[in-house]
């Protein structure tokens, strides 16, 4: 019996040490993220890993690539100087806000619309992209606009605000939330739903490979994407906004829009260019 008592003692003390060690670190709100990032010369961004044209891991080299990735790199350089490094952590619509609040990432740039509900828990930069929600249907479908969705089943991805919007505009529509947009599209193709909804730029990216499907009804909401930042990080927010402004003013922004969205059928890139 004696031996077991030692083991017991050992484990209990181990647990205690772990708990105490946990309490040691500083709470996030008392840290200045801008100062930390300047010290480490790195900004850690939460980005999408499976969104074509926006943030997708390249299977050839495992690097994230897309419009948001390039934009994040450009902003990083403006904030930290030429040698500033952008580190990427892949997030989903579901995990991005918890990860930001927990401090795993410094900023979110992951197709996140600026919404009053979200503003209650995090801060946003100025908008960096003007998307709008739209609908994707099979060619020849009777659905012509968002109003026609009442009584129909619509697929989308979990954690996006597209679901709330649909429920407000077409309250009788049934919404199925899938883990990601590719699965939402496949569910649509499998006949699990009659339409798919989310932001036009994402739908356009999906429609490229699926000529049998098209966007209908134009956009019925405006979804300004903003960079998500923790509350109480005024310095960091100012720096990001300043960086974004410079990226737009020196023409980098429009170059990136042309590079990624220059020839996506069903998506007019001219509408999102910034002067």
């Amino acid at each position, binding site marked *: 019996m004696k031996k077991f008592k030692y083991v017991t003692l050992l484990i209990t003390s181990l647990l205690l040490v772990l708990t105490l060690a946990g309490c040691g670190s500083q709470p996030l709100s008392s840290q200045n993220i801008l100062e930390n990032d300047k010290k480490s010369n790195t900004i850690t961004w939460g980005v999408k890993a499976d969104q074509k044209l926006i943030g997708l891991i390249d299977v050839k080299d495992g690097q994230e690539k897309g419009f948001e990735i390039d934009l994040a790199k450009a902003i990083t350089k403006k904030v930290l100087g030429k040698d500033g490094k952008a580190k990427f952590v892949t997030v989903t619509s579901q995990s991005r806000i918890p990860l930001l609040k927990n401090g795993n990432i410094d900023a979110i740039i992951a197709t996140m619309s600026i919404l009053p509900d979200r503003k*209650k828990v995090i801060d946003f930069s100025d908008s960096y992209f003007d998307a709008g929600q739209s609908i994707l249907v099979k060619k020849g479908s009777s659905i012509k606009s968002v109003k026609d969705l009442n009584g129909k089943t619509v697929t989308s991805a979990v954690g996006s605000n597209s679901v709330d919007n649909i429920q407000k505009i077409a309250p009788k529509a049934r919404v199925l939330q899938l883990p990601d947009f590719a699965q939402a599209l496949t569910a649509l193709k499998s006949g699990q739903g009659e339409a798919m909804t989310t932001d036009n730029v994402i739908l356009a990216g999906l429609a490229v490979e699926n000529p049998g499907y098209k966007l209908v009804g134009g956009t019925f909401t405006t979804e300004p994407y903003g960079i998500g930042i923790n509350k109480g990080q005024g310095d960091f927010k100012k720096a990001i906004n300043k960086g974004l402004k410079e990226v737009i003013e020196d023409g980098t922004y429009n170059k990136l829009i042309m590079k990624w969205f220059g020839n996506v059928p069903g998506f007019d890139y001219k509408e999102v260019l910034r002067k």
Partner: protein
Amino acid sequence: MIKLLVDNWSSFISGFGWTVLSSIVALFFSLIIGSLFAILEVMPSKVARVIGNVYVEIFRNIPLLVITMFFYLVIPLYVVKINGFTAGTIGLTIYTSAFIAETVRSGINSVDIGQMEASRAQGMTFWQAMRYIVLPQAFKLVIPPLGNQFINLVKNSSVLAFVAGFDLMYQGNAIASTTFETVNTYIVVGLFYLVITLPISYYMQHLERKLA
């Protein structure tokens, strides 16, 4: 956390209901299918044994998530339209049935071989001997492991969340992404699962002690 529970009570309860329903339906069918394949695996015919074996090995060795996705995305494309709840429940049934087949088969094997031979010598057919002599004893042996399979089944039903099956986990995801109270939401979800699984678990432990 209590406010979260009260505000989203109807979502949690409907999720709980779908989880329970899916678990019971899947348990019922996986018991039947599992037992059938277990018998196939011990039949004298070699073809039957191979069929039983292939079924069990395939579905035991592929993640449930992959099986479920297959039923949700592929079957409707080529065969028949099924919704997320049905696809999830079918996936759950097939996956669990492979494990139940394994459990029941080992139960059958641990019933003395002599008994099967004695009954056959008395003029019983294979099926008669199975039905009246071997299976009743085997089931008694496998009740505790079957209980564990049922607990696994309830937990695994969370896979329905991936195919919009409206279960507890799906509702939890939806609530977490609107309230941003991620951790609290999942604590509540966890408590709901425990309401189902803990009593079964303790009852099984009690049964195990009684049988031992």
